[in-house]
């Protein structure tokens, strides 16, 4: 990087470090110092475990920005509260620790809360009753969908009541002329895809977690995924939302209109709000037609520059039929070969590209694809590759990209970074990080939605390693800030990245976010400790 950029980063670092120092909780309250739960008979039996149990987070010192802050003074659940929940949700108020356990831990198994209550409403009315009650009692609530988030936003930090949308899984309507689907927030993405595919449509988003993630959670986190390149983000494809606000009021903006310019577009506030402004209970979404012809190409490139040139060529020659452009590096391939025994479809190359085309005419598409591949090969931008038109082969090629996340979990403890950068700089971060860490890390891999400028940088070590973490952060955030990139392209902020927001957003913007949060959730009961930084200036 140039000297000027380095100097700029240094100055920014000084300012940011000063800002971050304010975020360190200066109190030294520990678990044992909590007020005795003598007034809540329910907790009496469990209190011993409760006080002794520790949240298993990164083993960073208390002053680390990713660590949880001290528990805010919310009420604790009492026997009366449980009686109320059991009355409105008979058989769906879970307090058995074994059953609540899995909802307390995130998918990556890096964050664990200590909630003792899991609620499973089936209707919007039930969600409204729950929130109205919790708001009046000052009880904190953690909305939870498929629990596949990667930033610790989907699980409790302390004893927040878990509000699961899993039983709200009905499809409400589908119009096969407009392609508009309305459904409850707990519908699993893959189930929606299967439903639509039978009717000749598809969901506008697709991600590796599709078998478990729920549409409400996707909307709350503005999930990106593999099809964003072609169909755009949820900010464009979501037409309406039904949201229950912190005080139990039901906000019905579940319009199914493609165009509606009547007043402020409130749903945009909730898309990406990560459950902190309201609980999404129903979604209406615009779905594209199922393509008649899908081709997947797996290519190998010698250098990242050639990869980018291939992308430009692709855009030019495949144009409107391009539906995905993903990359992975040779380290990812090594992990796929080693841990998942997936063989390389082509010869070993430093970089691999997965290209998908989707169109309405197989002959037209294969002709365009043929021309593109011929050009890519003769200009030696691409050194090897293979094409799939059959469903089974397409799935096999896609799994080379989709299962990298899984392969990483077998390699050791993973530090995940989801960064948006100018496309030309994407791989520079990976090379710089490798150089910076040397052999402190086990593997350093880069992959992701290169077509959208989104890098997934992952670093593994045999076990949780605070020294390694200290070497990675804030280096990675400062590097990103230096290019005006985003420190969280699609994963969101959740618990782990909430305090890094200032790397990518100016303080006036964050302050305004705080105002909106205070207006919609004055008691702050919705998903506390997440998304917004601890110290809102």
């Amino acid at each position, binding site marked *: 990087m140039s000297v000027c950029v380095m100097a700029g980063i240094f100055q920014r670092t000084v300012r940011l470090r000063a800002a971050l120092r304010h975020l360190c909780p200066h109190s030294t309250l520990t678990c044992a110092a909590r007020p005795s739960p003598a007034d809540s008979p329910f907790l009496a039996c469990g209190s011993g475990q409760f006080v002794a149990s520790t949240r298993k987070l990164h083993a960073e010192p208390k002053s680390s920005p990713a660590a949880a802050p001290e528990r805010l003074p919310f009420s604790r659940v009492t026997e009366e509260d449980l009686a109320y929940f059991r009355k409105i949700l008979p058989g769906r108020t879970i307090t058995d620790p074994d059953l609540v356990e899995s909802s307390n831990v995130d998918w990556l198994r890096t964050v664990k809360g200590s909630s003792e209550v899991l609620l499973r409403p089936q209707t919007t009315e039930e969600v409204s009753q729950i929130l109205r009650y919790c708001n009046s009692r000052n009880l904190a609530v953690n909305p939870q969908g498929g629990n596949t988030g990667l930033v610790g936003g989907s699980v409790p930090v302390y004893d927040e009541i878990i509000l699961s949308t899993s039983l709200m899984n009905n499809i409400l309507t589908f119009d096969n002329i407009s392609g508009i689907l309305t459904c409850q927030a707990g519908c699993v993405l893959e189930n929606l895809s299967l439903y639509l595919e039978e009717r000749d449509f598809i969901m506008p988003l697709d991600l590796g977690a599709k078998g478990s993630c729920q549409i409400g959670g996707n909307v709350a986190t503005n999930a990106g995924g593999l099809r964003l390149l072609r169909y755009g983000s949820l900010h464009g494809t979501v037409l309406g939302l039904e949201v229950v606000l912190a005080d139990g009021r039901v906000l019905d903006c579940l319009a199914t209109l493609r165009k509606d310019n009547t007043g402020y577009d409130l749903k945009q506030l909730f898309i990406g709000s990560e459950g902190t402004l309201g609980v999404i209970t129903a979604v209406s979404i615009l779905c594209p037609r199922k393509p008649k012809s899908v081709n997947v190409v797996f290519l190998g490139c010698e250098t990242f520059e050639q990869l980018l040139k291939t992308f430009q060529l692709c855009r030019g020659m495949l144009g409107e039929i391009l539906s995905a452009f993903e990359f992975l590096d040779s380290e990812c391939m090594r992990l796929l070969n080693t841990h998942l025994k997936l063989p390389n*479809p*082509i010869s070993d190359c430093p970089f691999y590209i997965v290209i998908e085309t989707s169109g309405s005419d197989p002959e037209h598409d294969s002709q365009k694809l043929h021309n593109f591949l011929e050009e890519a090969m003769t200009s030696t931008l691409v050194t090897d*590759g*293979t*094409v799939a038109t*059959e*469903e089974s*082969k397409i799935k096999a090629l896609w799994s080379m990209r989709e299962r990298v996340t899984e392969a990483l979990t077998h390699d050791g403890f993973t530090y995940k970074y989801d960064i948006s950068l100018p496309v030309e700089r994407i791989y520079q971060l990976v090379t710089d990080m490798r150089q910076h860490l040397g052999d402190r890390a086990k593997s350093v891999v880069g992959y992701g939605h290169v077509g959208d400028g989104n890098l997934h940088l992952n670093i593994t070590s045999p076990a949780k390693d605070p020294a390694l973490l200290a070497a990675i952060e804030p280096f990675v955030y400062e590097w990103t800030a230096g290019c005006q990139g985003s420190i969280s392209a699609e994963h969101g902020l959740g618990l782990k990245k909430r305090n890094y927001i200032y790397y990518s957003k100016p303080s006036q913007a964050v302050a305004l976010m705080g105002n909106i949060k205070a207006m919609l959730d004055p008691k702050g009961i919705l998903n506390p400790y997440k998304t917004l930084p601890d110290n809102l200036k």
Partner: protein
Amino acid sequence: MSGRVLVGVKRVIDYAVKIRVKPDNSGVVTDGVKHSMNPFCEIAVEEAVKLKEKKLIKEVVAVSCGPQQSQETIRTALAMGADRGIHVEVAGKDYETLGPLQVSKIMAALAKKEEAQLVILGKQAIDDDCNQTGQMTAALLDWPQGTFASEVSLDGDKVKVVREIDGGLETIKISTPAVLTADLRLNTPRYATLPNIMKAKKKKIANVKPADLGVDLTSRLEVLRVDEPPQRQAGVKVETVEDLVGKLKETGRI
């Protein structure tokens, strides 16, 4: 020996596709449904190409019987490394009733015409699961057969075949010319790489009619009805052990 290997490849509905029965129960829906090469035929092609790469044989000829679209299947074999293709045109009613007996007659005729040293087929097709074509072809030619092959090695004018059978593995040695059918563990078919896909576009596919080979396509079989397997009933979840016992009593299980 000619050093020529004939490989039969069949175009079938892709195994990842959900099969639907036609409303009149006369067959399954094939219109607009994704088709691909039968997985066992892929393994057969891979084995033939491997033999050529080891220089044990000289030429791989891919054969497919069917309508115009069968040519795509032959192209896939060419992209995997076959040298040329033969498309035996069978369309319409004849294609609907095309089965192992007719195909084996065609393969036998072609094997004689091309002076093939080996005929390699998949052990069965995933649409009809007949597992008959290889055996019938060998019988018509009066050639030895090595079926359910999980390992093949050429040794002069003999072929050693390790066969997967119910009791385990059986090793036989047969003389060429012979018919082999490929089983799942024979090899892992390669992905057709781009350079080969480009080359394949230039390889020749000859067009042949069954009548030219003196083959009569009349079928001796008539499909009466095709039905879906009975729907699996959803299970019932109960909350307590008492409920479970009650339900079991209710349905007369205990």
